[in-house]
Each structure stands twice: as structure tokens, then as C-alpha cells.
């Protein structure tokens, strides 16, 4: 019996938006000052512990760039009688997934383990963070591996671009270097510097512990108390929170810089400027604006550079959020022959959204829908939730942030998007960076209104 074919002429309508209850967060403070946040999350028998220590690479002392990240790396090199090998063994035995990330404002440690190993995992993590061994031989090895790593990433175009772009935008500001630091600064660091930084920065009063797992709040808190309750606050004054008070120098003109890469198959591009802090009241309209301009596959920038011009495999814009002033930037890697054309097209898109081609109601609705309707999907795993809750602590956001997100973004208007684009994006002071074959691209860059290209060496 032949079946009647489906009428496919029109897309099926969307049903009503499903309700979702965002995870409830309970806040606690241990007697030693450690801030604890617990979330009951039952999708699988796992537990994620996330510890955020205030002061990331932005807290690196001058001429000691890379210190915070090196200290973070030293943490799992041993505690008590355990060597680095023993720590690795102990983590494997609880199926532990350990991770550390040094950002500009904080160092984040996380450990995901099976729920039945909750106390073992928490004890191990607490031992590492609060009583790391910090042995000389481990220090020498880790520092050397980092110096060697720096030499290796000289050949990675995107890494060269990230580092050069930070320096161009921030100069000597504490945000102006990558967490890894540079060879010169790493060479002068000593184990005493590591121990000093640890004593100064790793303190319960300056840290937040997030526990997310298939247990009740009281049980999660119990895990935290048993493992971290004995962490003593060191004497001495706690450091000032980042960012450092100095504001990076304001640029007043466009400029373009070129890092030569012999016979590069593509040019790695960054185009942007310092723009806003994560704590700006305009966060929601900026999020929507960025989604339309370059924050999603269907954004103006990706449609132009990838789908229309085929210059690249992909192009995007983003705010690299920080507590202090953070950059807005477009990043992409384009075919060498298309370098100047891609910069011109990208700059035109940044200009256009400020008013000459304001966002349409269709773009606005699309971006808001994409941001809000997909929001619950980011709360599936314990690790995702722990990361999200840690972000609230990092940026001093309220516990209602998750449930407020959808209505807040939903209320953004086209006029607001145009206003924040005009206010926060400034084509007149864009910095463009090209990491590519100077012999091939240098002449074409003169055709752009970015001035004479500034030739930079590869700096590691």
C-alpha cells in the first residue's frame, strides 16, 4: 500500500518553549573564610569540584610573567609524601579528570570523579592546593618544559597572533601577556618565587569552591568541610583583586602590524581594540550585538568571509571577557592571497553594524532566540554547571543570573544593539594584526586605511 508522501512545503512550527528550572545554588562560608557553593545535580553518579583562586596571570608581578600559571602547574606535582607520579596514580584510581586553567583574573582547578569517590577526590584536591610539595627538581623540570613549549609554539600561527595582539592592545598592563609568560621571565623565576606566590595568593578567604553532584546540599557541604575545613588563612595582607589599577593607554588611530611567517599558507588575522569589562551594565546588548556581527555561524562576518567570499574556513568576533577592560576582536585565518581583502571586508562589517547597516528585526530576533532558547543545553553535565557557577563568583554575579538570563536578553531592542555597537566599537582605533608571509602580503596592506604596517618580530 503506497503511503501518502509528507507535505514538506513548510517548516513545522515550533511548539511552546519548554520550561526549565535552573540549578539552585546554596552558598556557605567555612570558618576559614572559604566560600562554598553547592548544586544538586543528578544526571549521573559523578561529582565535580571546582576551586577558583583569585589572581591569575593578571597578578603576575612585573618581570615575572608566567608565574601564576607555573604555580598552577606545580600544584599537582606532589603533596605530603606523594610525588608527582603518586598524584597521577591516585587520580587514575578514582577515574579522576583533573584540569587547571590560568586566566587573567583567577586560576581555576577542577576535578571530576565518580560520586562514590567524593571524599577521596576532595581530600586529594585539597592536599594539592593547600599543601603542594613545591620541590626544586619538579620546578626545574616544569619550568624547562614551559620554555621548550614557548619555543615550539613559535611555529603555531594562532599562538603567535594571540600573544602579539595582547601586547599590542595592552602594552605593559598586567593583561598584556599570555599566562605562559615569556622565555626571559621564566628563566629568572625561582622556586622561592613559586612558594611566595602560593603563600600570598592561595588563601581560603580569596577562593571559591563549587561542588556539583548527585548529592544533597548538606552532603556536598560535608565533603567540602571535611577536605577544606583545615585550610588555614596565611598571615599577612591579602592581595588586591585584579585588575591592576593602571588603565592601558588609549589608542587614537588605526594601525596595522605584521609578523612575518615565511611561506605561510594562510594569514592569521586579529582585528579589534579594548572595549568593555565583563561587569558592564551593557553586557546583554553586547552579547546580542556580537552574536549578530560574528558570534555564530550565521553571523555577518562568517557569512561574508566564509560563505560568500570563501576566504577562510571560519571567522568570528568575540569579547575576551575579563574583570577589567577586555578586548573585542575579530579572529580568522585566511588564504594568503585574500589577506588585504579580508581585512577590508571585516572592518566594513564592524563599521556597518554601528549605524550604516543597523541590525534588522530579523537578525535581532534570530540572535536573541539562539542565545536564549539554547541556554538550558549548557546545564547538562556536572562540569558544565560547576564552570558556570564559578563564573558567577568570578564576576560577582547574583545567583539569580541563570534564571534572569533569558528575560534579560529577551528584552534587548534593536536600538540598544545599535547604541552599544556605536558606543563600544570604534573603527577609527582598530588595531589589525597579520601573522603571515610579509613578502607576499606587505604591499597589499598599503591599500588599506590602516597606515604603514609595523613589522614585529615573533616574541616568545
Amino acid at each position, binding site marked *: 500500500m503506497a503511503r501518502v508522501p509528507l507535505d*514538506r512545503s513548510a517548516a513545522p512550527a515550533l511548539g511552546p518553549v519548554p520550561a526549565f528550572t535552573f540549578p539552585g545554588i546554596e552558598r556557605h562560608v567555612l570558618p576559614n573564610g572559604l566560600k562554598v557553593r553547592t548544586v544538586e545535580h543528578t*544526571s549521573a553518579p*559523578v561529582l565535580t569540584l571546582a576551586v577558583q583562586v583569585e589572581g591569575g596571570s593578571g597578578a603576575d608581578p612585573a618581570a615575572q610573567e608566567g608565574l601564576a600559571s607555573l604555580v598552577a602547574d606545580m600544584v599537582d606535582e606532589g603533596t605530603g609524601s606523594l610525588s608527582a607520579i603518586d598524584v597521577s596514580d591516585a587520580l587514575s584510581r578514582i577515574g*579522576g579528570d583533573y584540569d587547571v586553567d590560568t586566566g587573567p583574573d583567577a586560576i581555576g582547578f577542577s576535578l571530576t570523579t565518580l560520586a562514590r569517590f567524593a571524599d577521596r577526590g576532595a581530600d586529594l584536591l585539597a592536599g594539592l592546593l593547600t599543601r603542594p610539595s613545591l620541590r626544586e627538581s619538579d620546578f626545574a623540570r616544569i619550568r624547562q618544559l614551559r620554555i621548550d613549549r614557548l619555543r615550539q609554539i613559535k*611555529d603555531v600561527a594562532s599562538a603567535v597572533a594571540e600573544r602579539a595582539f595582547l601586547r599590542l592592545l595592552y602594552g605593559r598592563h598586567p593583561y598584556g601577556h599570555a599566562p605562559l609568560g615569556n622565555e626571559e621571565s621564566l628563566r629568572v623565576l625561582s622556586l622561592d618565587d613559586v612558594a611566595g606566590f602560593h603563600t600570598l595568593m592561595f588563601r581560603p578567604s580569596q577562593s571559591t569552591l563549587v561542588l556539583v553532584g548527585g548529592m544533597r546540599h548538606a552532603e556536598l557541604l560535608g565533603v567540602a568541610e571535611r577536605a577544606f575545613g583545615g585550610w588555614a588563612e596565611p598571615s599577612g595582607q591579602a592581595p588586591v583583586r585584579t585588575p591592576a589599577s593602571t588603565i592601558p593607554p588609549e589608542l587614537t588611530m588605526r594601525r596595522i602590524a605584521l609578523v612575518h611567517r*615565511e611561506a605561510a599558507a594562510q594569514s592569521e588575522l586579529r582585528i579589534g581594540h579594548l572595549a568593555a569589562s565583563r561587569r558592564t551594565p551593557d553586557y546583554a546588548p553586547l552579547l546580542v550585538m556580537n552574536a549578530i556581527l560574528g558570534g555564530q555561524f550565521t553571523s555577518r562576518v562568517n557569512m561574508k568571509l566564509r560563505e560568500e567570499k570563501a576566504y577562510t574556513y571560519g571567522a568570528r568576533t568575540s569579547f575576551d571577557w575579563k574583570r577589567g577592560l577586555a578586548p573585542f576582536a575579530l579572529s580568522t585565518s585566511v588564504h594568503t592571497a585574500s589577506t588585504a581583502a579580508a581585512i577590508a571586508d571585516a572592518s566594513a562589517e564592524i563599521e556597518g553594524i554601528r549605524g550604516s547597516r543597523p541590525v534588522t528585526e530579523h537578525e535581532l530576533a534570530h540572535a536573541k*532566540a539562539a542565545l536564549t*532558547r*539554547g541556554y*538550558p543545553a549548557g546545564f547538562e553535565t556536572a562540569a558544565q554547571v560547576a564552570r558556570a557557577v564559578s563564573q558567577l563568583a568570578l564576576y560577582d554575579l547574583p545567583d539569580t543570573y541563570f534564571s534572569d538570563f533569558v528575560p534579560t536578553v529577551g528584552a534587548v531592542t534593536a536600538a540598544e544593539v545599535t547604541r552599544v555597537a556605536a558606543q563600544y566599537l570604534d573603527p577609527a582605533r582598530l588595531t589589525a594584526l597579520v601573522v603571515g608571509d610579509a613578502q607576499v602580503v606587505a604591499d597589499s596592506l598599503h591599500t588599506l586605511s590602516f597606515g604603514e604596517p609595523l613589522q614585529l618580530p615573533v616574541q616568545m
Partner: protein
Amino acid sequence: MTADRAPLIDLPYTKRTLDNGLDVIVHEDHHVPIVAVNLWYHVGSKNEQPGRTGFAHLFEHLMFEGSEHQNSGYFAPLQAAGGQLNGSTNADRTNYWEVVPTNAVDLALWMESDRMGFLLPALTKERFETQRDVVLNERRQNYENRPYGLALMAIVASLFPPDHPYNWITIGSADDIRAMKFEDVREFFRTYYHPSNASLVLAGDMTTDRAFELADRYFGDLPPGVKPAPVHAVATAEGERRLLLEDRVERPRLYIGWLTPPMYAPGDAELDLCGDLLANGKTARLYRTLVYERRVALDVSAAQQSREIAGYFVLAVTAAPGASLTDLAAAVDEEIARLAAEGPTTPEMERAEAQAEANFVYHLQTVGGFDGKSDQLNAYNVMRGDPGFFGKDLDRYRLATPESVRDAAQRYLRPDRRVVLSVVPRGQTAEALPGSEPVTVS
């Protein structure tokens, strides 16, 4: 077994096959109001011919450009519904997935079924040519412009004979991509993109009945197509081949490749464990000896590449300043010989079992995307014909013994049957192992 023994972990599902041959598998998970749609086509670069490599992957790009009833890009409508979507191609299969809020499941299925049944009317020469250029950019960005980015191409080209489809990697050769003809797309689509060669998983916050009803509604009227014949090819390892590749790199790196059993075959899980105990984490033998103790290497990696008709194992180790590849090769040989003679220790087996169980549990947290539960169910269904293989898959690791791991190392990781590739900084060919023959990859 210890008292820490895991409770049974399970990935329940229901499977039905539509009249047109489309496998449909449903898994309920009501934690978050989302549904994962995951569709596998049993086609990859393995189905390509020499001289026409890279086609399966380019075709995947075209699947996002529009179909007869959704005749514009696939991202816009699904992202506006709050969905995420992506796709990927490997040697054996091409997958497409969406993760959507529960109110957009109809939309996702309408679109997936439209590009399965009605892609060609929307496919223009212009879309084809644009995506061909995008793929050439992808290749430059991810392979040509990346340190060591061409090494794997050199290894598989030597491990597998020219007429074996694992002789090339999925991105294909740049010349082949440039030479692709629009006319070839039609034939490829008809051969591989139809219900008889596909498998659909719906996982998430919906009932099983509703999921089957929707799958049948959107896919049930598509014509079945002819199931393509399986690909057969044989590769035999003989002797040791030494190759040399110059690249824009700071430090020399040694790669060693061996032919191994295919995915899920005896020895596959054991070789996976060999990779872990040689190179994964600080307790791993090669990491510990070369990076931690002797400090002659900057990094080390080793992994079994499980593929449908053959496997290969690739080990890589980067020389620290002052260390030579010859020294590293000797140290690696020594560790592998010891593993092949003595097998793993009890602590190594305990760690491996704990880590395997945890990794399987962590997988249960995510319904969609690459490696989520829906992708896993499709892998088991397409490669094993059994979506219920989750527990058996874990058992492959739980039931591995020191003897079976030793035997796999002994049998497959042999010094006399392998490809050894030295990747050295340009102009420093003396850094390569003695007797290495220069290769060109492009």
C-alpha cells in the same frame, strides 16, 4: 574485585527499522528539556578512490547549504530555535547532529529528512565551488599551516598500499580537491545518502513512542536506495620503513606507526590500553621515563586508531633540546620490548579499569553532540549492528588481562614491521634516524 566495584552502568534504548531500511534508535533522558538528533551515513573517505580523495568530507559541507524545501543555509533556522548543529567525516562514516529544545524536534527532523531525500534540487554549482574553496582553506589552516600537520598523511601513505582507502586521510589531497567536478556530487549522493545506508538516533526529553512516530513521519516516505557493498581492502606490514619529513617545527619528533586490528576486533581494546599505559598521564611508562625522569622528551603520545576495516597504532615523541631521535627511538624500543615480554603490572591494570569505568560514566551525562550518548548508540549500531553494545564495550576493558595486553603488544607493536617517521626542522635532515628516506606530502 574490590569493594569499589562499580554498579552496573547501562545505556537503555529501543530500536526499530523503518520499511525503507532506516534504523531508528531511541533513548530517553529527561534531565534537560532538549533532544539530540544524530544521523549517521555509513560512508567516509574509505569509500573514495585514489585520485579522488577528500570527496566525502567536501560533500558533508554541501549538506549544510540547503535542500529543496529548506533552500538556504541549515544553521539559521536551527540556531534560531535554540539548537546547535554540526557534522563530521572520518574514514568510515559521516555524522550529522542537532541538539534542540524539545519544541524544535519536528523542525530538526524535517530538515534532516529533507537533506536526505531532497538535497540535489537545491545544489548549485556556485555552492559547490564556494565550499570547495572553504575546504581548501580548512586544509591550509589545519594541516599545511600547522606544525607536524602533515605527519599523519605521511604515515598512513606508507602503512597502507596505494589502493587501500586508509592510504589517505579524510581531508584528501589538495590537488584532488581542486579537481573535483560538480557532476560527481549527484552520483555520490545517490550511492550513499539514503535510508538503507543511514542510522538515526533520537535521545533526550521525549517519550519513545513519540520519537518513533516523528521518525516515521519525516523519514518513512523516503525511497530506500540500495545498500552499498562493504569495502574490502588488505594491508600487510612488512619490514621497517624509515621516512623523513622536513617541516616548520622547532624540535624533531619521531612517529612510529603499526598496523593493528580493526575496531572492536580482538586486540583493539588491549592496544587502547597499551596507548594509555605507555603515554597517558605521568604514570605512563614512556612519559615517566622520557619526560619525567630522563627529560630527553618534551611530550609523548600513543593511541590505537580504531577503524572499521583495519586499525593502526601511532606513537609520537618530541625530542628535548640536546636529545636525538636515535636516543629516543632506542628508549621507546626498550619500553615496548619490556611491555611485550612482561605485560602490564597489577597497578597499571587497576588504574586502567578505574579510568575506563569513569570514562563510560562521564559519557552518560551528555545526550548529543560528538561522543554524546546519541553518537555512541549510532557508533554501536552502524559498526556492530547492536546499539546495546555499551556494556559489552566496557567489558572489553574490564576483562582485559595482563596476558592479553602483553600478547597484543607482542603481536602488533613489533620492531620489524612498522613505519618510523622523523619530522625535523627544515634543513636539519641530519636529525632524522639513519637511513630515513625523504617523503613529500602535499
